[in-house]
């Protein structure tokens, strides 16, 4: 589904991703962990198409198509969704108000008829229940004055609405209370299917109790330096990153 080969990206003269290789197959959940500043959000942003980063080498194929050639909106239409680590505040634009435009643009791209107001509302009601989010929050200016948890929940709500093939969750668990964490995980698990895949960026093993990964990768200094089964997350939780850093330095 997603094939990242030797991906390198920098911002200005600063090299951030130094050759990432990752293969994600349909149905899989991959967790990416790693110390602060190692490049996790950068990887997520590059996949979603943020223009601030210069891709200086490597390639990314999504279902056989060159992802890096596509505008962000087309990546979304192809089925990629990024739940932002820091969702931006947009005054005057409510979730309901842009999401309908977004869904219908995506449907247009796919050659589907637009949803009418009734169909859209029905879908919204359904998904609102799923992530336990209030209508009033969705009618407010996006993220303006939202609590940390509300912002994250809103990201998951959007994901539930858009039903992406590949969801990338960038620290969606941070700032969530236990109940919210469970709700977010449920939202993700509801989407799990043999055709869909998820990349979860997290610092905490806790989330992985709810969203059980097939693989865990450690990103350090712009490279994936270790990959393993879900047990790797426990090891990291217990021992921290020093042993991995040491391994890397000795190589």
């Amino acid at each position, binding site marked *: 589904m997603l094939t990242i080969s030797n991906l390198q990206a920098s911002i200005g003269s600063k090299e951030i991703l130094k050759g990432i290789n990752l293969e994600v197959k349909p149905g899989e959940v991959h967790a990416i962990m790693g110390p602060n500043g190692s490049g996790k959000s950068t990887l997520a942003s590059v996949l979603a198409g943020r223009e601030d980063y210069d891709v200086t080498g490597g390639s990314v194929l999504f279902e056989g198509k060159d992802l890096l050639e596509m*505008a962000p909106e087309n990546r979304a239409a192809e089925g990629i969704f990024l739940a932002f680590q820091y969702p931006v505040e947009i005054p005057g634009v409510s979730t309901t108000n842009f999401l309908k*435009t977004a869904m219908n643009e995506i449907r247009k791209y796919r050659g589907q008829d637009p949803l009418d107001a009734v169909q859209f509302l029905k879908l919204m009601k359904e998904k609102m229940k799923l992530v336990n989010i209030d209508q009033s929050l969705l009618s407010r200016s996006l993220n303006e004055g939202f609590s940390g948890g509300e912002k994250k929940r809103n990201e998951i709500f959007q994901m539930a609405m858009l039903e992406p093939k590949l969801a990338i969750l960038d620290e969606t668990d941070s700032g969530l209370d236990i109940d919210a964490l469970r709700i977010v995980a449920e939202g993700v698990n509801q989407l799990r299917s043999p055709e869909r895949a998820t990349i979860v960026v997290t610092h905490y093993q806790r989330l992985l109790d709810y969203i059980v990964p097939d693989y865990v990768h450690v990103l350090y200094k712009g490279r994936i330096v270790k990959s393993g089964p879900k047990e790797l997350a426990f090891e990291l939780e217990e021992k921290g990153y020093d042993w991995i850093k040491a391994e890397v330095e000795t190589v």
Partner: protein
Amino acid sequence: MNNQPHNDLKSRLLADFRTSEERMNGASKSALHQIRREALNQFDRLGFPTVKHEEWKYTNVNSLIKEVFEFNAPSAITLEDLAQLESSQLNGNVLYFVNGQYQPQLSKIVSPADQLSITTLAEAVKNTPDLLNQYFAKYADFQDNAFTALNTAFASEGVVIHVPAHTTVEAPTILRFISDARQMNVASQPRNLFIVDQNAEVKVAESFRTLGDQASFTNVVTEIVVAEDARMEYYKIQNESDMAYHIGTTQVYQQDRSHFYSATVTLDGGFIRNNLNIALDGSNCEAHMYGLYFPNGRQHIDNHTLVDHRKPNSHSNELYKGILEDRSTGVFNGKIFVRQDAQKTNAYQSCKNVVLSNDATMNTKPQLEIFADDVKCSHGTTTGKLNEEALFYLQSRGIPKTEAQSLLMFAFAEDVIKKIKIDPLREQLERRIQAKLAR
């Protein structure tokens, strides 16, 4: 005398004045005409402002005064011509002026005369001279402003509205000023006077439009008196052509406990200068000023506002927003005076701009002059580019870049547009903004 070409318009106007005076016979002795003559002399002394004048630093009237205009040109405007302007359909009083001349056949007045007196200035001169003597040219200063002096000197057409005390007028009134520039360069100088008496309430909008692509020049002055406990909503809407010059002054005089609520929306127009001056000459008054300007191409839009807090316990609140495209320029100059007597004044001012092109320029100048010690004042201006992060966020949800940009800019503009309380007017503006954003 210097013989620079920009004196041409001036000398033509001076000559026009004398010719018209000669034709007036007895009327030239009227009190009103004495004011006109005084204003003309003042215009003669002041001349057109140059960029050396502090108030005109960023707004150069040079190209305006090089043009030759036909003042009060005849126009054979038809209903079909009007239809192409796609104006909002308002249930209220609608008065049309074309090239400065009243068009009774296009206008309708629905409010009963005992609720609202609406007449043209020409009628008021004949029928209610006392009212004019009491209010006309008592507020809009022509000593320092050449354009106001010029308008006063030639004041002959416009609208006089008088709302009697304790009357709430539900139906809105819209004054539509159309420059018919299909055949030639045209000019007009509308002069309006609105008097909202004690505890009365009224909504008035002024709309400015152009037909055709010759040059047009509108030099409008509106004087507004909001008496004790009275409330007024005032909207100025400009959708003029790229060849339109517009200089306008709205002078507001507020008495105790009065409310004045305004929005000035400029979506198009070649060269525009709006002055909105509010004298809060009463305590416990409120003045709200909203503004939106959206120039593109080489359009120039200048908004000067002045709030003069003369008495204690009043509140003024101002929010102006600008979206600038292409090579356009914008100016915002907001003055707040708080005089020594005006203790417990609350005055807020904010001006926010988004500059969408590297070639567009925005000049902002907030000026606070505070002579009282117990006041709450704040002001802030911001000028920036489109929020790239917000743009990316929307794109990442599947919305193409141009649409995402429109969505963001519409939300930015809507902050001001939603303040317009006449629904058909607001909805029409929303459609125009959407259309301009989609271009």
